[in-house]
């Protein structure tokens, strides 16, 4: 029995990866939930918005790398991120102007907007593939690790190593900053409060003189910031491939619904719930168990509950459980 090593293995393969994946999901789900709260539809294009934002950021990153601009040890992508956000925000605002606004004025049913967002998704997906191609792109540079496994072993003298990738650390730090800034905006500024008011009670917000178009514009800008940031962090941490962003839709929606659609705090909690469930259920616990249990009880199977190919089944199962038992989510989101 060796608890210390068990904890290190746990941290290395479960806690840190789940924390950074959860942060990425939380940022994505925040965008979904904000759009839902204000525009009142589930935006199926959000995954591809993330891909678009990440792509623009990658293009800027490459440009900076070619020019020899670097902020090492931080990845150049971090420097390119604001540019990616600006372009993505411009794209979303233009999309709203050309596509969504019409349906808003028509007071179309939410499901029509969902369908329209599907069309937008198609187009974004096409744009991304035309510009950067469907393949995998690498764009990370700067330091690879905050702590790598060898250093950790030397430092602590433990048998197991702990690797803390720079991209994981960056994800966690950036997420904390982004979430803090978002909540400051929503809770402390007049504009943010008016967004919450509009989300809470549209008619009364209008009676109070809140300009709906302005609220909508701010929402798209926030969505662009969150989606691009989430997309870039995910790309840095894993790798950039357009199709994976489409596949993130399900866990993101699941996170937003688990927390209660329209509720920002819920989206964050939901993101971590989904990520931790996914990682713990698809992790092979053999190593941890070997350290924890006396040698006589050491397991001979992998002790993996689900193969990693079924990680989407985890989000889906959680989604189904929530839909059955608590359809408005843990933090009671908006009911329309």
């Amino acid at each position, binding site marked *: 029995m060796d608890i210390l090593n068990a904890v290190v293995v746990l941290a290395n393969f479960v806690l840190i990866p789940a924390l950074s994946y959860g942060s990425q999901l939380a940022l994505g789900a925040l965008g979904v939930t904000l759009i839902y709260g204000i525009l009142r539809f589930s935006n199926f294009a959000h995954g591809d918005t993330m891909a678009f934002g990440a792509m623009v950021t990658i293009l800027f990153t490459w440009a900076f790398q070619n020019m020899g601009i670097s902020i090492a040890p931080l990845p150049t992508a971090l420097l390119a991120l604001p540019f990616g956000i600006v372009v993505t925000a411009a794209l979303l605002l233009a999309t709203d102007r050309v596509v969504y606004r019409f349906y808003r004025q028509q007071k179309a049913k939410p499901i029509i907007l969902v369908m329209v967002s599907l069309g937008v998704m198609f187009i974004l*997906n096409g744009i991304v593939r035309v510009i950067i191609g469907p393949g995998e792109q690498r764009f990370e540079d700067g330091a690879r690790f905050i702590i790598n496994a060898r250093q950790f072993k030397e430092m602590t003298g433990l048998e197991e190593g702990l690797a803390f990738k720079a991209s994981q650390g960056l994800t966690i730090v950036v997420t904390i900053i982004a979430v803090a800034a978002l909540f400051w905006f929503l809770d402390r500024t007049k504009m943010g409060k008016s967004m919450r008011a509009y989300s809470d009670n549209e008619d009364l917000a209008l009676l109070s003189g809140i300009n709906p178009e302005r609220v909508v514009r701010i929402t798209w800008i926030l969505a662009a910031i969150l989606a691009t940031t989430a997309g870039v962090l995910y790309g840095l941490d894993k790798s950039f491939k357009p199709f994976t962003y489409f596949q993130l839709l399900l866990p993101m929606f699941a996170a937003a619904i688990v927390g209660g659609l329209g509720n920002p705090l819920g989206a964050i909690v939901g993101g971590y719930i989904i990520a931790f469930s996914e990682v713990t259920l698809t992790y092979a616990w053999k190593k941890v168990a070997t350290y924890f249990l006396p040698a006589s009880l050491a397991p001979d199977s992998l002790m993996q509950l689900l193969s990693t190919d079924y990680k989407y089944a985890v989000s889906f199962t959680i989604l189904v459980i929530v839909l059955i038992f608590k359809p408005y989510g843990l933090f009671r989101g908006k009911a329309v």
Partner: protein
Amino acid sequence: MRNAALFALVAALYIATGMMQSWNTALAIFNMGLISAVMALGVNIQWGYAGLFNVGIMGFVALGGLATVLVSMPPVTEAWAAGGARMLAALAFGAGTIAAGIATFRRMQPGRRRALAVAAIFAVGFVLYRWAFDPARDAIEAIDPASTGYLGGLGLPILIAWPVGGLLAAAAAWGIGKTALGLRSDYLAIATLGIAEIIIAVLKNEDWLGRGVKNVVGLPRPVPYEIDLQDTPEFVARATELGLDPATASSLWVKLCYTGLFAAVLLALILLTQLALKSPWGRMMRAIRDNEVAAEAMGKNVTRRHLQIFILGSAICGMAGAMMTTLDGQLTPGTYQPLRYTFLIWVMVIVGGSGNNWGSVLGGFLIWWLWIQVEPIGGFVMNLITMPLPEDSGLRLHLLDSVQHIRLLTMGVVLLLVLRFSPRGLIPEK
């Protein structure tokens, strides 16, 4: 009148393809057009009659594909001997666990004890299930993995797989509908998106069931093989009489046989859906769609009706999926893409005219033709555009390379334009 003209126009597209490219190509596109029309019909039932947004068409189509394997492939007796019984027992046990969990949930009073009891049943059930399942799976997959490694099917005629595919899809739809219907309309969309991903994941990973990404090839056919036709003297004689060489003629004849089968299914479905639409049941469905609150107030059980129609529509998609796999002659789980199997069908329904069965059929044929032809046309256009650029220019190569992705863009633009400027589609609902 207008509608007839539209159908004539689409027919002209196919005929033009036949004359300009080849009749073989035209027929191949037409056959998939028939299948697309069936899928569009299924989706139209859900959307047009009831306003249900199903984003998981791909999953139901894939279940239909699985049905062809389960029905038509010969059983692998060694695999059955190695682990068949244990596998069946494991699956039965898994189903039993779920049933026991649900029963416990229904019987006990709400509270912490119930939650614990249900969780315990599922946890213990899952461990036992894996204990039974894993060795069975390993044993089955170990049997000649290069060519089998799965249980095989029932060895029945493949046409039986079509209704079976419908049944499989219906069962999945029942599960999803039970969960997500009666809640917000977006939830059904998200839930169906999820189930489709999971069905594909199962198909890709459960090798014992359908060989996963190793694919099942050589599914039996409901129509003759080209090679047999070419060996039949009468056929060769008939072909020469018509001035065709035997190879082309056999390929055309096989395709025509499929056309006949698919067209029969499509016509039967159109007949049934049109009758249903005009029946009191169809009127009630549309009344519910147009005003759920009023319908509910009149004592209609809206959720139940929605469940009914969701199952029906999904079953049609499942059947179409079985037809498609039959046409392909192989099950290749790796090729199921949501963009191709879910969203393309949606474009067909919206462009054709949601709520109108003829509209979705038209949309099926038209959009499928476009989907196939946009690529060569796009390549041609792109070649023209990039003419001024030097042969080895990076931009030129990149643009030529990306022609295939322009299809996605085109479909997205078509969908948005129709939704915006002609939301009722080419053939609007009456």
